[in-house]
């Protein structure tokens, strides 16, 4: 199944080939967890500060149990802030 991965700020460099702007379409297995996807993308754990699935924040402790669904949008940022 396909999901959309969006990586921002300093994580932009981890976008897979074929990405456009800050997003890429990624083929994943049916039962893949959020944590496995993060590992497959090679994102350093300590830099995955904000992880949103369809805009909703997923706590670090829940990333292993959240299973991806088709067309999910996963967005990841390092620790950032603004005003």
């Amino acid at each position, binding site marked *: 199944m396909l999901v959309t991965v969006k990586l921002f*700020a300093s994580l932009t460099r981890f976008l897979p080939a074929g990405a456009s702007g800050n997003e890429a379409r990624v083929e994943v297995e049916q039962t893949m967890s959020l944590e496995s996807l993060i590992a497959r993308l090679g994102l350093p754990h300590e830099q995955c500060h*904000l992880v949103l699935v369809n*805009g909703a*924040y997923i706590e670090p402790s829940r990333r292993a149990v959240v299973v991806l669904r088709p067309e999910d*949008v996963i967005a990841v940022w390092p*620790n950032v802030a*603004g005003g």
Partner: protein
Amino acid sequence: MSWTRKLLRVDLDARTCGAEPLNMEWAERYIGQRGLASKYLSEEVDPKVDPLSPANKLIFATGPLTGTAASTGGRYSVVTKGPLTGTIACSNSGGFFGAELKFAGWDMIIFEGRSEEPLYLCIENDRAQLLPAAELWGRSVWETEALIRKRHGDPQLRIASIGRAGETGCLFAGVVNDLHRAAGRTGVGAVMGAKNLKAVAVRGTLGVKVADPKAFMAAVAEGKAKLATNPVTSQGLPTYGTQVLVNVINEAGAFPTRNGRDVQFEGARRISAEAMHEKRPTDGKPNLLRNGACFGCTIACGRISQIDRGHFSVKDKPRYWEPSGGLEYEAAWALGAATGVDDLEALTYVNYLCNEHGMDPITLGATIGAAMELYEIGAIPANETGGLKLTFGSAEALCKAAELCGTGEGFGREIALGSKRLCEKYGHPDLSMTVKGQEFPAYDPRGIQGIGLEYATSNRGACHVRGYTISSEILATPVKTDPLVTEGKAELCKAFQDATAVVDSAGICLFSTFAWGIPDIAPQIEAACGGKWPVERLIETGERIWNLERKFNLAAGFSAKDDTLPKRILKEAAKTGPAKGKVNRLHEMLPEYYKARGWTADGIPSNRTLERLAL
């Protein structure tokens, strides 16, 4: 101790300047800057005064850490009764002006009255004089700075001035210093213009003393080490600036778009920090040139941009070709998403206009967004705009409307009223996205509940930097709370508001708090000021300042009924994103908030609260 213990009182009617000892009893209870200036204003100005009348006063105030070695210690605030809202107004700026004022030996300047003709104040250490500004009147902020330096033959003068917006009575005119740093919000520049005061120029060589230099240097070094290792203050802000939030808030479904009709903007990425780093297809250069820092700041979040010379907005206008202050998050949102415009170069140009003419980009963008909605529904007749086609998404309309507003011409005079008065005038008051007359910043309260409470209760009208609950609700700093939940938001909001009042009164930048808590700031204040400044005392001081401001507003005629949000936010559900189907549930938070503050159910500080805070 790091107060100079001296203030300068300037009588614009009599054209006199006089030194006065700072009221140290008040300084001990209100610290400085926002808190102390609010105390002076409350004592000296009738809260019912017309903000643009000579009876209003205008205060420029530094904090005890301004001009010291503390990181980000370059801040000053402009405090007055605000013309946009009628509330107490306080607007904070960085750059170098604040530190220079302190070096000249002044904690504060109080302007009173109104001059018959344009003047500017020039301070060289102890010597302060009012000088004629006839040839500066009608000039932009940029021209004014250059002319004053030339006249005095001193390239090191630091200058804070108003542009044409402040002169022509734009109700959201700001005071701009160092070309592109601004006390931007609440219309403090309009008060300055109404007083016929064009600029304040300062040169100071006296330095700042601290109470315990050894302890101070140790506390400062510890603070700086924290900023240097925190990922936000050492990497995120210097590299991406506040602008990094565009994609975050858009993905979270809380990016107010087209005057709040939508909560997500399809063009968000094109106006984001990431886009500012990319090479433009037109000239192969990125919009962002480099970062920049205010006085003494080791974070350096500032954006220095350069517009594509071939872009329609700056074609044949070389003064906009030079590098200058680029887009921050709030400006990019207001000028972009609120108007539906996704042209990064056009937004950068309008941001330059805000600096050049002295306007608040948040209120400007939000008001143009409101005007676009009024135009699209036919409430503003096409023949009233002087040919301006105010449609959502039009970069040309945005640029033109901003130019006219900056110089106070044509339909720009309507924009200069702000969206509340504009929407009332054209028969749709509900379309103004304001609280107490001031426009929302860049977070939609349908998608982030706590910030709605903060907008509703902010003492200067809708504002995010009075209590930045976004830190917790979205950015998971210091702890994550669910943005869609109302429970616990009353206490969260109060905690952020009280702590922020401390930061704003100390002379340092709010952005330091992405790494620092009050326990990191307390030892710096204590070593600088002398005496004991434990965390509890500081937090109580923050609460005292908040209640003092509230008392001013109540006396000015505001009441609990003004602690509300626009109908759109309370009744029209978000259409997309995680908050789809949701509105802001202010009614669940506000009574709890009043209780947490020790106020009556009518939002009035109880006698017990006032006694506890010695008010």
